């Protein structure tokens, strides 16, 4: 039962993993969603040929419909001839095989047949169609091909990757791709049977050799020989991070900052740079952690949208979670820095880009529950702070909300699960009612 049950039974290791998965989840942008780069062609008014469900004919027949509204991959369609009558409007995923560009029926030898409820509305359907279709937009003829191409993913079963070790968040280990659905990977550790899901562009996974190259801790594998068919996933398949110049003013150990709390993704916490790695990567620890050996430190890139300069929460009216055990409340950064003899990481080192993401409060989407990353759930954007989105899982209490970056590879448009064949978790209340 989603993260609720998981939370109640989770061990510190489990919690640590969930924390890790959550914090590192946000990564790349919507361009990685299938059809993301060509979706701009679609808009209200675009005409398609679609199955005519309002007919007595025994064979499949089609009719022209116009897009009334777009929601994610789904479109509200209205058969031509219904004018302003909304009673027969219907939702349809535009990427399913039943949707075609205008002209497809003729090229396939199938006649267009008007819905029977309006069959007598016009005596000359040809004249009607000429008038309605001339100058209108339709899908490109290769739309179905584009959909197919966009559903091909470069990661294949038995590819080897480096991925965070869910039993020790501060290190990585080798895992094999076991399954790929819609760009999401089910990874199985090379030594063991544990699996977990993440998107192929998740910042959790890297090419073999990444850990050594940046100085990240790594659990060496005792597997001496690769099984037939295994291969290291090519480095170019992974998400790229921005190059950064670490030679000038840069993050240093013990610098303070604010970070989305990996053990509680609903919160942003006081945190510390614990170790500066190469290529712009940082090991971060949440202040007040009960773990003293650093095993819950987690790796962020310096450009990550999940770390913030001290004062970010106060400026943006977000409650900052103070260090566990810190009693001098309300928390004041000035006092805390003085008491801990530390300095705040300079504001200029943080990623301040705010993409024109277009998300608005109240919008629905399909979002990964990063506490249980195999689950993609019905969710709502409830708050927007620059590029940061507050994601609420429909039917669940607010305590399960998550802060997620607008360009996360764990956020998908409505209809993504249907398109990719990934199981969508319905809102909790509906689930209870089946």
């Amino acid at each position, binding site marked *: 039962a989603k993260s609720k049950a998981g939370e109640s039974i989770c061990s510190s290791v489990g919690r640590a993993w969930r924390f890790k998965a959550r914090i590192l989840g946000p990564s790349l942008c919507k361009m990685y969603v299938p059809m993301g780069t060509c979706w701009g*062609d679609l808009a209200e008014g675009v005409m398609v040929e679609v199955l005519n469900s309002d007919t007595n004919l025994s064979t499949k027949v089609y009719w022209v419909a116009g897009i009334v509204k777009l929601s994610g991959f789904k479109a509200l369609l209205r058969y031509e001839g219904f004018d302003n009558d909304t009673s027969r409007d219907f939702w349809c995923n535009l990427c399913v095989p039943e949707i075609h560009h205008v002209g497809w029926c003729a090229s396939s030898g199938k006649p267009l047949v008007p819905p029977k409820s309006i069959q007598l509305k016009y005596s000359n359907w040809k004249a009607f169609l000429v008038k309605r*279709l001339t100058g209108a937009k339709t899908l490109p003829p290769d739309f179905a091909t584009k959909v197919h191409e966009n559903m091909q993913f470069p990661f294949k079963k038995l590819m080897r990757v480096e991925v965070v070790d869910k039993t020790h968040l501060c290190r990585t280990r080798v895992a094999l791709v076991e399954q790929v659905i819609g760009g999401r990977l089910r990874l199985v550790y090379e030594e063991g049977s544990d699996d977990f899901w993440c998107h192929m562009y998740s910042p959790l996974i890297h090419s073999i050799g990444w850990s050594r190259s940046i100085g990240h801790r790594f659990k060496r594998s005792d597997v001496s020989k690769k099984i037939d068919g295994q291969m290291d996933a090519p480095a170019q398949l992974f998400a790229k991070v921005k190059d950064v110049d670490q030679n000038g003013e840069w993050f240093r150990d013990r610098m303070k900052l604010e970070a989305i709390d990996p053990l509680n993704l609903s919160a942003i916490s006081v945190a510390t740079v614990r170790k500066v790695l190469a290529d712009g990567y940082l090991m971060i620890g949440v202040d007040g952690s009960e773990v003293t050996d650093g095993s819950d430190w987690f790796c962020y890139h310096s450009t990550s949208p999940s770390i913030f300069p001290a004062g970010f929460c106060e400026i943006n009216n977000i409650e900052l979670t103070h260090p566990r055990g810190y009693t001098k409340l309300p928390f004041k950064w000035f006092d805390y820095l003085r008491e801990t003899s530390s300095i705040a990481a300079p504001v200029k080192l943080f990623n301040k880009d705010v993409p024109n993401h277009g998300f608005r409060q109240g919008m629905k989407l399909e979002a990964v529950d990063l506490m249980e990353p195999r689950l993609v759930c019905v969710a709502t954007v409830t708050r927007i702070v620059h590029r940061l989105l507050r994601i609420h899982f429909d039917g669940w209490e607010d305590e399960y909300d998550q802060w997620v970056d607008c360009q996360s590879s764990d956020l998908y448009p409505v209809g993504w699960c249907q398109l990719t064949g990934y199981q969508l978790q319905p809102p909790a209340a509906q689930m209870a009612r089946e």
Partner: protein
Amino acid sequence: AVEPSSRKWEQKQVQIKTMEGEFSVTMWASDDKK
């Protein structure tokens, strides 16, 4: 018809087939090649 603002769109002759026969209309479709 007025050309849509995106230059990716181009005019195409589109064939239509109904029970009453075939004819063509001019529509706009986006073109990847541009």
